């Protein structure tokens, strides 16, 4: 009796100890919702295992790489562009090493226990947006050369995804910014290709003038970018096995009928949940003139589309693991039956314990870049050379006004970035 109690306690402890990635980030999300960026940063630093933004993990793993990506956006919200760009570059290198280690794109569910036991492979939306976000950091620091490096990396990533046959994400933030960077560097042809890439999917007024002048640099302008909200994130969700089999279809390995004997009648999988955003665009004021920003990229919609495409595979992997567990359990029962007498009862109890323990160890993989901005708006404002006060009004449930002084050289540009991941 005492032994069985201990076993149950162990199972409970195992289950309780398995907080998912999104669970661990909850405190950081709540702090961000209060615009308490230092607290959000502190919570993420705890996940990374460091004391301050000056530090990067000593030993990297998938979760730490992702947490460093999360921190980069929280740092942007505090205008810490240099630290944010360092975080993005470092995390990108780590994710690349992981990516090279794995076999095929979209490989999911190879383990009996858990998806999250696998190394994290960043999604195409995350991979292409990473370089775009880092372009923003360099542009905010007025470092066009650095932004151009990120623009080239963005293109390498697009080419890579194309060779893998992965459906390229619609998000064209990278193309919009790469076009701007190359236009300012005098590479008009290249800039124009990016602009036409964006315009092919969505007509943007802010690009009309640039396309009309064949991407030759404007005499002087300010680019304002608002990165608001957070992309949808994954949470553990239960679904009846029958419904899950219907969705997963051919992605299940093994015979799902074995699950009829299982004590567990639901499957737990990572479901995408929208993060309610308090930001809905904004206005720009320079002197007595005012401009509306326009939506350049709906990253949240791209993440949702990407998830919908992969959901049957996620459920298929979860069901495959359940089938594997049920087979282990059935084997234990069969061994008990062969022993006969009291051994049969012991076999049944052991099977229940085994299956419960394996379920306790199984946690749905909720890893994703949760602080990835949900939407990005932009405005391109022609200005005369000289000093300007750029006032950015971030619209939403609560209007926030940011005043940023800029200096525009003759024929030059300035870039203002406002990140509000709330």
């Amino acid at each position, binding site marked *: 009796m005492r032994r069985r109690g201990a076993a149950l306690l162990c199972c409970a402890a195992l289950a309780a100890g398995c907080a998912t990635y999104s669970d661990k980030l909850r405190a950081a999300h709540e702090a961000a919702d209060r615009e308490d960026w230092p607290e959000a940063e502190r919570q993420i630093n705890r996940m990374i295992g460091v004391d301050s933004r000056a530090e990067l993990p000593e030993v990297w793993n998938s979760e730490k790489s992702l947490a460093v990506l999360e921190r980069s956006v929280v740092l942007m919200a505090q205008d810490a562009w240099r630290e944010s760009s360092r975080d993005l*570059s470092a995390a990108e290198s780590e994710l*690349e090493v992981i990516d*090279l*280690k794995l076999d095929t794109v979209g490989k999911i569910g190879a383990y009996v226990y858990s998806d999250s036991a696998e190394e994290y492979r960043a999604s195409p939306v995350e991979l292409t947006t990473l370089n775009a976000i880092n372009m923003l950091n360099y542009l905010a620091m*007025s470092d*066009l*050369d*650095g932004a*151009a*490096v990120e623009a*080239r*990396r963005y293109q*390498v*990533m697009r*080419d*890579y995804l194309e*060779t*893998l046959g992965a459906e390229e994400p619609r998000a064209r933030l990278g193309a919009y910014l790469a076009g701007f960077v190359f236009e*300012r*560097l*005098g590479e008009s042809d290249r800039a124009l290709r990016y602009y036409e890439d964006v315009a092919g999917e969505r007509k943007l007024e802010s690009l009309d003038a640039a396309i009309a002048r064949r991407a030759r640099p404007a005499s002087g302008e300010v680019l304002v970018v608002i990165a608001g909200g957070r992309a949808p994130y994954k949470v553990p969700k239960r679904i009846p096995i029958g419904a899950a089999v219907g969705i997963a279809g051919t992605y299940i390995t093994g015979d799902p009928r074995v699950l009829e004997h299982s004590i567990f009648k639901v499957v737990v999988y990572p479901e995408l949940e929208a993060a309610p955003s308090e930001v809905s665009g904004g206005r720009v004021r320079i002197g007595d003139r005012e401009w509306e920003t326009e939506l350049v990229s709906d990253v949240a919609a791209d993440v949702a589309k990407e998830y919908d495409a992969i959901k049957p595979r996620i459920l298929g992997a979860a069901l495959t693991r359940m089938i594997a567990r049920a087979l282990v359990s059935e084997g234990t029962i069969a061994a008990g039956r062969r022993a006969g007498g009291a051994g049969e009862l012991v076999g049944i109890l052991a099977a229940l314990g085994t299956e419960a323990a394996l379920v306790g160890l199984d946690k749905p993989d909720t890893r994703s870049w949760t602080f990835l901005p949900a939407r990005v708006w932009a405005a391109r404002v022609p200005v005369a050379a000289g000093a300007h006060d750029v006032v950015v009004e971030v619209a939403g449930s609560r209007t926030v006004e940011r005043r940023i002084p800029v200096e525009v*050289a003759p024929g*030059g*540009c300035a870039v203002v970035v406002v990140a509000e991941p709330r």
Partner: protein
Amino acid sequence: VLVVRPLVVSFALALLALGCAPQVVRGGAGTANPKLDEPALGVGLDREDINYLVSENIDSLSKSRFWKGEVEGTKPLPTIAIWPIENRTTQHIEDSLVTILSSIETSFVNSGAVRVVAHSDQEALADEIRRQGGAMYDRATAQRAGRQLGAKYFVTGRITSVDEKLSNVRRLQYSLFLQVLEVETGLVKWQNEVTRSKQLKR
């Protein structure tokens, strides 16, 4: 026995600690590890790559008709200034660019054939280039700066990369392109390109 045992234990623990602690070794010419710098640790540019890219270019320059005919033996020694090298790679190699510039500067100084405007004296030029927003060579700025610096030639160039990723391979092909331009005329007196590849493979 009671006295010896703690000593033995301490000695064993010290040995264990030594065995587990990260080891630091000295490498390079004149050390026990002369080949320490040879293995590539990443796809970025390391000292070996920089030495190769610069030395091959300088070697080409020193053998060129321009160098032998218009520089070597000319009195007074012609003055050369160095325009920043443009980074057109997919890597943030600002530190490597500084090393490349220093290597080029050192090669020129040690040649004894030219006078070199110290990089530290070119702050005004660097500021102007920064304001332009990029390190791309601009003839008008070069002429103005060249006159101020008393330079007859500018050495400039760019480093480019072809960056490809496929399945479990990432390959970068770097090219260091250098050229010497006459400040007054803008004529290209010499140019050369040296390449080096790096690969990361699972």
